[in-house]
């Protein structure tokens, strides 16, 4: 039996720092999440929103204050959360992102941890303004593998959508 997803938050437009802070506040105020799940949702939102701000081909905002534009939707269905983030990218960037998502799917939690550690110590990959760690962290926070959708447009660009599934209550903490 499938229940329609309810939308908890959606923003479409430029992802300025102010927008990211305001949306983040809304997400942190959502009821019925464990503290750990709330943190993972906030972290996933910030990485996706900052990716859009940096890398989206579509720019918008006041002159001098332009940022990458796109859309982030957070929805809930059947005890799960889904964060969907879409923006326009070049075909080459879409192909590179799809390859990275496919490679991360093959890794379990222990392998993701090792990759994160190695990548954090390495210099940023070419073309990355951030640390190149965002996708790995999202894969670690997700409750199931990351997915994506790439929709070609008439102008030659691709509307690329990241789909990050998250638990609304964290798994029982492992003793260390």
């Amino acid at each position, binding site marked *: 039996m499938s229940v329609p997803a309810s939308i908890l938050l959606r923003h479409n437009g430029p992802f300025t*720092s102010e927008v*990211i*802070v305001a949306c983040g506040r809304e997400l942190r105020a959502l009821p019925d999440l464990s503290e*750990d799940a709330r*943190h993972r949702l906030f*972290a996933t939102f*910030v990485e996706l929103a900052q990716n859009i701000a940096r890398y989206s081909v579509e720019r918008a905002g006041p002159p001098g204050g332009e940022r990458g534009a796109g859309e982030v939707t957070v929805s809930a269905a059947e005890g799960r959360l889904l964060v969907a983030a879409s923006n326009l990218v070049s075909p080459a960037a879409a192909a590179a992102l799809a390859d990275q998502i496919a490679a991360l799917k093959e890794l379990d939690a222990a392998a993701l941890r090792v990759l994160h*550690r190695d990548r*954090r110590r390495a210099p940023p990959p070419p073309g990355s303004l951030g640390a190149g*760690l965002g996708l790995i962290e999202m894969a670690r926070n997700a409750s199931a593998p990351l997915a994506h959708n790439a929709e070609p447009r008439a102008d030659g660009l691709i509307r690329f959508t990241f789909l990050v599934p998250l638990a609304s209550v964290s798994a029982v903490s492992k003793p260390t």
Partner: protein
Amino acid sequence: MNSLDIPATDTTPRVHHNPSARLLLREGESYPEDVVAFYAPVVAWLRAHLAAEPGPLTVQFALRYLNTSSSKALLDLLLLLDDHHRGGGTVNVEWLYDPSVEVMREAGEEFGEDLSMPYRLVALAN
């Protein structure tokens, strides 16, 4: 030595050096739009401080959240402190975390894996 006290913003923590030889990054979180612009002056201050003040230094982190770019900047800062320790300096690092947020405890553990200086995880009382 110049004092250091950078107030917290929505996306950056307060960074404060107090007279009892503690450098504190706390009262906030770290996800600035421009991570380098925020951390470069902190690292520059720390380099100058370590060169000028041979005494022990405790560095305490109590961050609510840090994004991946900040985590890379923080590792660079920790590696600078670790070099100081390897060179004979006295440095203690404390990572304070909210025990209800497993991710932040894990983040603290994972920073510790790359360091040889005294490094302690401390659960904050709720």
